């Protein structure tokens, strides 16, 4: 559905994006993560056909976005960075423009428009000029434009930026609902969005793809994966004993919330060991958890590694 091969964009000596190979199948929602300047927006712009790649190519539904731009764009819904729209138009006028350009006319077109207006809750502002709207409404107006023609491929650059938590949840539900038969790429800075709406993750840093997989796969690369954390008052002795176990690597106590995290040595299963030891020591446990791993942790680890490399191509 979406495929990039060796996709790259070079500005002078700077590789904004290099050697990007992505594949997103129908049913997949790929979260594109990365620090600012990692090349997320540039990649999305190339896939959407706005920027011409310097190397490689991007395909949407089998159409090369450079060679067959019209066919590729027809299959594509695109929310550009910053959710731009024509401020002097009203919401209804802007959506009517998008519908006309996409060839959505007559009853079916009107029905699609009503559907989008309802799902994105634009009813109260339909007659209002877009430039008078709040950031959240503007984003939803532009999102409506991207979804209006029911495209099989969606590229959404920060779809929930500027939305309040309720609206974010709505958009996540919308994305999940559409994912069934569509290929979707979403860029975001909010890592909880990944769990809420995405089933694949790709991490970019310095223009290169650094990691890709399901959220669970990436979480398992975290040093927290398989760790056991608990909260228990007066457990100093138990912590000492835990640290001496051969299966256990280190024991850390969070300075702020006092939570203890026990890290396994070489990925060993330590849950039962911790539980047994705490029980033997008669520690009163308030909370106990087997950690899946933390995406934040993996994200930082991967982007820190990339940060050590020079950004400018030789």
């Amino acid at each position, binding site marked *: 559905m979406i495929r990039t091969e060796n996709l790259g964009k070079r*500005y002078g000596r700077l590789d904004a994006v290099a050697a990007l190979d992505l594949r997103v199948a129908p049913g997949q929602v790929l979260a594109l993560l990365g620090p600012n300047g990692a090349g997320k927006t540039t990649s999305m*712009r190339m896939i*959407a*056909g*706005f*920027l*011409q790649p310097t190397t490689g190519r991007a395909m949407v539904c089998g159409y090369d976005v450079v060679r067959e*731009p*019209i*066919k590729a*764009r*027809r299959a*594509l819904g*695109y929310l*550009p*960075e*910053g959710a*731009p*729209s*024509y*401020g*002097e*138009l009203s919401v209804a*006028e802007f959506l009517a*423009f998008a519908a*006309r*350009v*996409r*060839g959505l*006319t007559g009853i079916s077109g009107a029905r699609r428009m009503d559907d989008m207006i309802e799902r994105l809750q634009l009813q109260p502002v339909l007659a209002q000029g877009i430039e008078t709207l709040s950031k959240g409404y503007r984003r939803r107006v*532009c999102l409506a*434009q991207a979804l209006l023609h029911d495209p099989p491929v969606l590229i959404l650059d920060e779809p929930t930026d500027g939305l309040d938590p309720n609206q974010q949840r709505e958009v996540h539900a919308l994305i999940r609902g559409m994912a069934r038969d569509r290929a979707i790429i979403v860029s975001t800075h909010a890592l909880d969005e990944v769990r809420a709406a995405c089933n694949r993750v790709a991490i970019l840093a310095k223009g290169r793809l650094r990691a890709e997989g399901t959220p669970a796969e990436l979480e398992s690369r975290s040093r927290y994966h398989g760790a056991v954390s608990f909260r228990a008052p007066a457990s100093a002795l138990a912590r000492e004993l835990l640290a001496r176990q051969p299966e256990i690597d280190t024991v850390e106590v969070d300075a702020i919330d006092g939570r203890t995290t026990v890290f396994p040595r070489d990925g060993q299963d330590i849950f039962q060991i911790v539980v047994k030891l705490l029980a033997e020591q008669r520690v009163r446990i308030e909370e106990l958890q087997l950690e899946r791993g933390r995406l934040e942790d993996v994200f930082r680890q991967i982007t820190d590694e990339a940060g050590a490399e020079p950004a400018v191509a030789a």
Partner: protein
Amino acid sequence: MSAAASAAGDRMQRGRAFRGVFLRELHGYLITPVAWLFAVIFLLSAGAFTFYLGAFFERGQADLDPFFRFHPWLYLVLVPALAMRLWAEERRSGTLELLLTLPIRPWQAVLAKFLAAWVYIGCALALTFPMWLTVNYLGQPDNGVILASYIGSFLMAGAFLAISECLSVLTRSQVIAFIVAVAVCFLFLLAGDPLVQQPLLALGSGRVADAFADLSLLAHFQAISRGVLDLGDVAYFVLTIVFWLAANVAILDARRGG
């Protein structure tokens, strides 16, 4: 679906996209104050110049020469003002990204914007019809000359518009787009005038100066407004428009590549 039917569908879809952009642009003129200002100032100053500077009554001749004589100078300021936002605003607000990822070719977007603005200017020009009624009431003018002048005026506005639209794509700033467009339009307006010719001659190239003199918008407009709708003059305006629109498409493409 057969290949032929699919190709026909493609054309229809593309036609829709073109029409959509054209109508949006035209609609934009009806709801933005800049466009209304353009129409009002054009009509007011066209009238004022004709009667005061052009001495319409005092000349005692039933023609519209004093009216058309000032059109190049009105367009010089007003057309760049109307066109400055065409691309600069799209670039500033980011809607360029939206526009160029619609199922539309860049040349169609360029042409749709151009045609919408040209139609709007044409409407403003058509609203000067009371002038024509006045001369016909006062005397017996040569209506052929007047018609030719109207056509010439419209073509000249198109040339100014194509130049201004093309220059608007170079910047995000409407002010810069306006100033550069006025300067370039001025240069082409007076290409045959000593003001432009003398520096060129001073640089020592008589042939370049002559060639540039042939590009003078003013000379071609005056030729048409004398009542001779010469094919060469019309072709000059059409080619000027085509050249600047093509340059516009090329710059737009280059920006996406860069």
